[in-house]
């Protein structure tokens, strides 16, 4: 192949482009100089040219009828729908996804902090059953909780990432309810309350993660359908 290349420093593509006058000046000079000295290339060029001429000489057909559109053709197909396509949905869903992601990590950050962070007003959303289970298993006294929380948070993320399929439509109210975590300053709660708070926070975080992933999935899906 290398030897062949050395003897023919010109590719088929160059010959074809030469016919169309589509080579830049330097390349064109090189290709023309080579064709002068190379029988095989000259034959190839001639034959490619003949093919091109033959194609151009193929008889042209007349359109069998006028293709002018009647109003009836168009009424079935009004002008706006196709270009309108997705409308504003992707932007809204994208925004929802972004807000949810931010809130998700904020909550995660609260989870991972020293435990005296603000509680979330988010309702304990039931979608995060896996998280609660794990949390129950780890439930112990107050001193161990911080470590446990740190360990348990990653699974929260995994749970959120694995379940977009379970969420056919990201439920906007979820995000609405959970997104603005009320920032009530709260003294360190007693153990049972604290436990409940952590559960709520993690559940809210998981729900937000699900909403975020679900929104992105929906955007992606609608793009695909639309294209």
């Amino acid at each position, binding site marked *: 192949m290398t030897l062949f290349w050395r003897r*023919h420093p010109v*590719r*088929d*593509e160059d*010959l*074809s*482009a030469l016919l*169309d006058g*589509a080579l830049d000046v330097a390349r064109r000079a090189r290709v023309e100089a080579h064709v002068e000295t190379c*029988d*095989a*290339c000259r*034959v*190839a060029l*001639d*034959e*490619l040219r*003949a*093919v*091109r*001429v*033959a*194609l*151009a*000489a*193929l*008889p*042209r*057909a*007349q*359109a*069998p*009828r*006028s*293709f*002018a*559109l009647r*109003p009836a*053709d*168009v009424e079935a*197909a*009004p*002008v706006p*729908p*196709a*270009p309108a396509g997705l409308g504003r949905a992707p932007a809204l869903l994208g925004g929802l996804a972004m807000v949810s992601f931010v809130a998700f990590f904020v909550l995660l950050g609260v989870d991972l902090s020293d435990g005296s962070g603000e509680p979330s007003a988010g309702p304990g959303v039931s979608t995060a059953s896996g998280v609660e289970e794990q949390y129950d298993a780890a439930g112990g006294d107050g001193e161990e909780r911080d470590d446990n929380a740190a360990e348990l948070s990653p699974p929260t993320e995994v749970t959120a990432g694995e379940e977009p399929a379970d969420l056919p439509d990201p439920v906007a109210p979820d995000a609405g309810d959970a997104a603005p975590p009320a920032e009530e300053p709260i003294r360190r709660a007693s153990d049972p309350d604290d436990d409940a708070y952590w559960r709520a926070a993690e559940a809210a975080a998981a729900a937000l993660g699900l909403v975020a992933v679900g929104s992105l999935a929906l955007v992606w899906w609608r793009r695909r359908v639309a294209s």
Partner: protein
Amino acid sequence: MAEPAEAETLDRILEGDLNAFNDLIAAEQHRVYNLCLRMLGSPQAAEDACQEAFIAAYRNVRTLRGGNVRSWLMRIASNACIDELRRRRRRPQASLDATPEGEDEGTPMQVADPAAGPEELALRGEVGAALQAELLRLPDDQRLAVVLSDIEGLSYDEIAGAMATSVGTVKSRISRGRARLREAVRARPELFSGLVRPTQGGR
């Protein structure tokens, strides 16, 4: 080729003015029809694809904004042809029933052209039909590039616009398509002797 008086007509077209759009169709329909005919090989399929393309063009007229009208129209027509080819591939036996091959390859070549030179006369019958048949054997993207370039006479830039790809890709598709056609022609010297001198060697 008759270009519509763009500036003013274009505005009316973009507003969805059906009459203005029909003027555009009148100016371009032969070109679009011929593209479909060469791509699909059957007058009936070409007519359907052509109609489909113009309706799609009207529905998507907003995507025309700022572009080259011809590239835009050829792109929509190309898509209509590719769609039809995909449909055929999905149910091959049905399409064979619908369009017998004899009709497919024979009919488009019977067009009378009073100003034909001897070379074109030779191409009218068997040779032209054979060339069209070879064209139909090319991969879709190569056929489309070759048809747009060598039959419709579009520039590389216009073809790149119509195929939504780069000029480099267009160049390569045209080259590969022509090279295949050349091989096909060489393989049947008795038929294509007028086109290509029988020669030894070659690359």
